[in-house]
Structures are given as C-alpha cells and as structure tokens.
C-alpha cells in the first residue's frame, strides 16, 4: 500500500526520524504525551490571540483598537510554532498514520487556507484595519478575512480531533498514488 506512493516515502521519513532521534524521543515514556500538551498549548495561544483578533475584526467584540490588539499576535505565532514543531514530530514518527489519513489531509488544506488568507490580509487589508479607531466598525472585507481565518482555525481543530477516527488502513486517502 505505502510502497506504491510515487511522491512520499513513509519508510524513508520514519528512518530519518530514527536517525535524528525524534522517533526515540516520541516513543520514550512521556514523549508523545508531552508533544500533545505542547501541541494543544500552542493552539490555545493561537486561538487566544489570533482568534480573539479575528473576533474583534468580525465586530463581535467592540471598543478595542485593532492596531494595539495586534500586539497579541506574536504570541499566536509562538503558539503556531509550538503546534507546528510538535505536529511535525507526530507525523515523522508514524507517517503512514497521517499522510494517508483523510482528516489529516483536510487539516493541512485548512491550514493552507488559513495561511493564504493571512498572507492576503496583510497584503491588502492590514493597513486599513490598523488605521481604525477602537470604536470604528471594520469594513466588510476585513470581516470576511476574519471570518475565513476563524473558520479555518476551528476547522483545523475539528479535523485534528478526528484524526484518530480516520486512521489507515481502515481509511486510506492517496489521490496521488494512482
């Protein structure tokens, strides 16, 4: 099943994880547990900063300057880094359980959507939003960016929660395997 993959090499990935020590670390007594705690701590920081910024930009919370509130976002970046690093360790330690898992693939697509939405927001909308006063209503386009961002992150959480329900080999998605 896995050896027919023309692009990804799960055996090679896990061999690399063993060589660099990630595999042994993850399968030590508390490795997986600590990585999960780090993963969810990162998500909490992300939702507590980027998510709350999104809620303000959607107009659901009022009276806060978006330029000043944006100072919270570096903590969201830290949270994302924690989640990404721990997530990377999960994947390389048991790649076949993630790479071909429908829920994980959906999670990665939503992550890409959140990243693309953020990039376009900073390119075309951020300056307009930062110029708003604490009680000004954000423009409709900014609300749309915020809604897509929050929905993407909630989708990432949702897909992440069901990864265990869609484990290969019972579930196996590989559109690129032919």
């Amino acid at each position: 099943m896995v050896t027919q993959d023309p692009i990804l090499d799960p055996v090679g990935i896990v061999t690399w994880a063993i060589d660099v020590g990630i595999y042994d670390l993850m399968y030590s007594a508390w490795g997986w547990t600590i990585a999960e705690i780090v993963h969810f701590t990162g998500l909490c920081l992300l939702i507590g900063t980027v998510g709350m910024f999104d809620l303000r930009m959607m107009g659901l919370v009022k009276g806060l300057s978006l330029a000043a509130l944006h100072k919270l976002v570096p903590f969201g970046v830290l949270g994302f880094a924690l989640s990404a690093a721990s997530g990377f360790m999960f994947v390389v330690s048991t790649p076949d359980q993630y790479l071909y898992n429908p829920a994980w693939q959906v999670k990665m697509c939503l992550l890409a959507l959140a990243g693309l939405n953020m990039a376009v927001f900073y390119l075309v909308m951020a300056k307009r939003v930062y110029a708003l006063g604490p009680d000004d209503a954000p423009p409709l386009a900014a609300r749309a960016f915020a809604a897509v961002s929050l929905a993407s992150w909630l989708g990432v959480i949702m897909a992440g929660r069901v990864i265990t329900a869609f484990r290969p080999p019972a579930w196996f998605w590989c559109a690129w395997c032919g």
Partner: protein
Amino acid sequence: MDALAWIEQTRLSVFVREDFYAYFVLLIFHAWGMAFLVGGGVAVSLRVLGVARGTRLERFAGFFQIMWLGAAMAIVSGLGLLAGYPAKALTNWIFALKFACLIGAAVLVWRMGREVFPVAARGEPMPPRARWMGAAALALWLGGVACGKLLLYTNKMLLTTDLAW
C-alpha cells in the same frame, strides 16, 4: 463504583460509546468550547500582564461573552463525554486537577473583571497584584489544557468492567 457502572448502562452512555459519530462530535464541540474559553482567558491574562498596552483593559470584558459561550459548549459536551466513559475520568485524580485549574483560572478572570477592570476604566495604575493574577490565570488555563491531554495517558480504566481484568 456501582454508580459508575449504572451510568455506563444508560442509553446515553452506550450511544456515546457505540455510535461512530457521537464521541467525535462531542470531542469537536469540547475542543471548540475549550478554545473559546481558554482563548479568551489567555487574551485577558496577556493584556493584564502588559501585552497590547494600547488597548483599554476594561474593554476586554467584551471577551467574557465569548468565554461564557465556550464554557457552555465545553461543559455540555464534557458531560456527554463523561457519560460515555465515567470511570475513565472519575477514577483519575488528573480529572480533578483539570477542574481545579480551570475553575481557579475562571475565578481569577472574574476577580480581574471586578477588581482590576474598574481601576483601569478610571485611568488609575493597575494594582501590583493584577500582574500576579494575570500570570496565575495564564498558568492555570494552560495547566487545565495540559491536564486534559494527560487524562488520555493516565487513566487506570476505561469502563468499570475493566476491573474484571
């Protein structure tokens, strides 16, 4: 233990365990609820600690409604999950620690709302204890989340029938 065994035999408990979607739908709503509850708490705590000083602290009370919504989602879904596997949670002291952390954090945020926000609204400097409250609340929110993950790895049993082993 008899009470836990009785809960496990209820239709709700059996449904949560045996339906393919029920358990995961509850898990998703629990994660979303915790995200809004802890997320709002993290934002308030960081602001009290001095991050995003350009915002008016008392306006962070606007996040309290989001936190209430998150708490409601987390509690309802959490009760559903508890109904499915009562012995798994209620025989594990980490479960009590999770609650202690989350209740402690919520009480601190409530006290900040009552004691620190009015001071900020009057334009007066924050009392020195505010930063301690913010730091403690942040630690307790993240501690509660950590305990939630630890529950997966520290349970002694899933069901009371496991005692037969």
